[in-house]
């Protein structure tokens, strides 16, 4: 089958690669670019572990072909932290509120929630739970994930007002 040359931006860096059409974006990120922070769970769009930002909007990397990302800008979990010593505020809140145990689902939750909090900086618990309805966690029972989102929102509000 034909191979296609694609050029895309991931976390601000431009990559050019040749891909088979059937290569899933999730596998492309992990295997071709070595960005293994995007996790692969169900590969049919149910678990949310592979959620990334596709042109700024959360999307399932396993339901997108790599070839479709030609000319697009993606953000993966590797693009969240400012540097090796400073986590993104939402990552720090997950750490502090014990919002993860095994951590497998965490990249998907983060990539779903970062744009959510930008749109809705002061969400209710119901809004948070609806926002994460497309992400499965098998460890925490969601309680501490919700607490982490609230903590991140409170810190952001505090930082804005102080």
């Amino acid at each position: 089958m034909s191979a296609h040359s694609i050029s895309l931006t991931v976390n601000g860096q431009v990559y050019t690669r040749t891909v088979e059409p059937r290569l899933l974006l999730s596998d492309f990120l992990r295997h071709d670019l070595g960005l293994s922070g995007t996790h692969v769970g169900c590969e049919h769009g149910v678990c949310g572990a592979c959620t990334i930002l596709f042109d700024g909007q959360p999307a399932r990397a396993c339901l997108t072909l790599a070839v479709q990302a030609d000319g697009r800008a993606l953000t993966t979990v590797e693009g969240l932290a400012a540097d090796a010593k400073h986590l993104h505020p939402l990552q720090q809140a997950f750490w502090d509120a014990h919002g993860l145990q095994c951590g497998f689902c965490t990249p998907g939750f983060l990539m779903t929630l970062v744009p959510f909090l930008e749109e809705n900086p002061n969400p209710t618990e119901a809004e948070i739970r609806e926002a994460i309805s497309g992400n499965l966690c098998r460890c925490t029972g969601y309680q501490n994930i919700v607490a982490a989102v609230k903590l991140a929102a409170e810190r952001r509000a505090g930082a804005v007002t102080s």
Partner: protein
Amino acid sequence: MKPAAFDYAAPDSLAAALALKAAHGDEAKFLAGGQSLIPAMNFRLVQAALLVDVNRVPGLDGVSVAADGGLRLGAMVRQRALERHPLVARHAPLLFEAMPFVAHPQIRNRGTLGGSLAHADPAAELPVIALALDAALRVQSAAGERWLPAGEFFLGLLTTALTPDEMLVEVALPPLPPRTGTAFQEFARRRGDYALLGVAVVLTLGPDDVCTAARLVYLNAGDGPLAAPEAAAMLVGHRPTPEAFVAAADHAAQHEIAPTGNVHATPDYQRHLARVLTRRALTAALERARQSATGSTA
């Protein structure tokens, strides 16, 4: 869990996309949002020799008000855009109400209106809304175009009237008549999952609050979006009462829907849901019809 090999084309014009489909027929599939097609290909339930990606075709994602006051929606409008569009809220309140129930936000960011309609999953919301609102669907091929009413578009399980060379390009929603109320109800175990059952209701009142028109369309209650015309006819010509709603809901649940059950719900439970959700939807639609002076508000 990986798709079988296929060729890929991403034409930048509708003419080029239709020419490819005309040349390859059933061997080719259009790729819109991909939120149903890609998982089906990952499972190898679907194999295609060629994917024609229509995401780079311009002009298919418009949302506008037609001269008659209805809505014209491009087939490639993202579901997330419909969910947030002020024109949808104003002119198609039933569609607006149903949108948050369509899968999860991550899916709606990619999923399209036309893709969902052409996929024709009996558990999907958008085919039900299209049938309830009596949408007209414009389909195009290299040879020309035709309009199909929603009632003639959906032919059964994952099956539509589209021929192998045709593409759904536009959806026209007629304006709601004056004093019309609409409502959508569904029940799912987890928000965003496929619902165990759902119903869309359109109810129109005439002078003296007599019901002049009614439509009931069900989700996951048969092999496609399923209308219950007998239950709807029971309401027409009478002033709506709670008792009449119970009778119509019971009739639809017992005699008109054909739920097959699944791992989460027996057919009996789905019929129970139909009774409860129909009553709730009819009650909400009646209230909205009474408040509505014109056709363009809920």
